[in-house]
């Protein structure tokens, strides 16, 4: 009898537990990234171009003053671009880099601007490394651990290298279709803490890897 009561308790609790961080993407970003290298062959930063989905673009553009209907100049979008990069600081720009397994830190973004190509907004920005590095194995991941933003590599030339030493080899790893076990994990998102180090987040991570032997 006690067990049935415990069962009933669990039955009561289960629907109650379905709360927590929201695991629904509401923003979709198609990304193109360029990994930047200095003349001495060290990696200096990442240049992003993030294209937002049409609905979020319309949302972000709401109330932004513009002279011509359906057109926005870079100047008209300057304050929004500023707002974007300011807000993204809190989320580490969704960009996580490791050189030979060690975390690489970025400075705040430079050269940032927005362009509007109907129906999408594209955010351009460059993240310079705090200190340039020349790792043998570089990994840069772009993802939102909370899955509010869904990142997806652009179909054509998702990643390019700018000024990399000739022996460097780039590979790109797309977020894969979750396996059954990972889907299970997905359904437990609310109960299981997700952090950048959890292997689960890798499902959604867009990985750029550069090997420079």
């Amino acid at each position, binding site marked *: 009898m006690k067990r049935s009561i415990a069962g009933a308790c669990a039955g009561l609790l289960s629907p109650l537990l379905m709360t927590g961080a929201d695991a629904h993407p509401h923003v979709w970003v198609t990304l193109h990234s360029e990994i930047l290298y200095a003349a001495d062959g060290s990696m200096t930063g990442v240049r992003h171009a993030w294209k937002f989905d049409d609905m979020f673009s319309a949302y972000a553009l709401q109330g932004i003053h513009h002279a011509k209907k359906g057109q926005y100049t870079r100047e008209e979008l300057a304050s929004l671009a500023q707002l974007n990069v300011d807000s993204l600081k809190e989320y580490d720009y969704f960009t996580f880099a490791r050189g030979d397994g060690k975390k690489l830190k970025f400075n705040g973004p430079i050269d940032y601007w927005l362009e509007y190509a109907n129906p999408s907004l594209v955010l351009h920005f460059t993240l310079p490394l705090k200190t340039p590095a020349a790792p043998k194995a570089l990994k840069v991941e772009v993802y939102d651990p909370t899955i509010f933003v869904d990142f997806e590599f652009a179909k054509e030339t998702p990643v390019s290298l700018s000024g990399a030493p000739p022996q460097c080899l780039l590979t790109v790893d797309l977020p894969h279709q979750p396996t059954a076990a990972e889907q299970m994990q997905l359904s437990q998102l609310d109960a299981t803490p997700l*952090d950048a180090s959890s292997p689960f987040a890798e499902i959604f991570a867009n990985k750029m890897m550069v090997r420079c032997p």
Partner: protein
Amino acid sequence: MSSLHQKRARFKNLVAVLAALAVTFVAGAALAQGVPFGAPHPASAAMSGSGLAGWIFAEQAAFYRSLSGYIRASKDDGAAMWALFGISFLYGIFHAVGPGHGKAVISSYLVANQETWRRGVTLSFVSAGIQSVVAVIIVAIAAVLLEATAKTIGWTVHVVEIVSYGLIILIGLRLLFVKGRSFLIACRQFEWPVRQLEAAPSAAGMSPVFHRHNAGLIGCSHCETDGHGFHCDGDHDHASAWSHAHGPEPAELGGAGGWRRGLSAVMAVGLRPCSGAIIVLVFALAQDLFWTGVGATLLMGLGTALTVAVIATLAVSARQIAGRIASAQAGWGMLAMKAIEVGASALMIAFGALLLAGYMASEQLWMFTG
């Protein structure tokens, strides 16, 4: 890592602890296996329904992404508008299966308050309805009338959210007070006969508790008047085990005041609009199709209401089953039910507090726009 991430991690840890507790309960309990949307537990989850959550996740995302195309198309195609409404409805159903949308809070409220499933379903629909209407009102005032920016809209949603979570905590506190008092009194009543039996010769000395019982504060007061110690189960109408002078009686809840309380709870929950609805509305407005967006939002709300109602019904049924089992165990069974009610009230406060503490972790409309 920023403080937000830490906050979020802390929040998730707490949720994980709660989940671990639930899983402990589930072990060895056949009953819980029948809860289709229940928190999955590793043992059975690996075998059953593993694809369902992922499928729902993918479907709702696909529905959402198709909305913009339908909204555009409905500009000069009436059929596309009906397709849009259909998709919005389905999106609402699927979307609400995921976390959020007040399912947890509403369920806690229903369990703590001994609500009927009918009431639960009605309140779920009212809550989802309010949620849609709030989204429409915010966008209508901020975007249509004031031509405010996304930043302002995000800020407004943010403020509404904080108010909503604050109200949830207040309602939870009120429930906890009522249910906690009722539980404590039942507790005293439950322990009393044991002491009474042990100390029977000096029964006159037991006066404080004894008198309070005789004062009719407690529904079971006839137990001690039968002269055979604590034998509630002998002549007891089990239904009356629930009726206590403290806290709302089921009958009282059925009255106008009960509805008002229920409405205040769903009002608190429903205040917080869904980010998806806000984005869809603003997008529709940008296409000069605001009213189409309003239609889509209301149908999303209807879909959400269906899902929330199912979850609420599950919670209420689980409670009723527990109640039936408990009523077979006079004494502690009733106590256990009271404990569940107290627990549910506490959960409601916990949800409110967690949401408030981690309010930025729910749906960050301001992730890019301040």
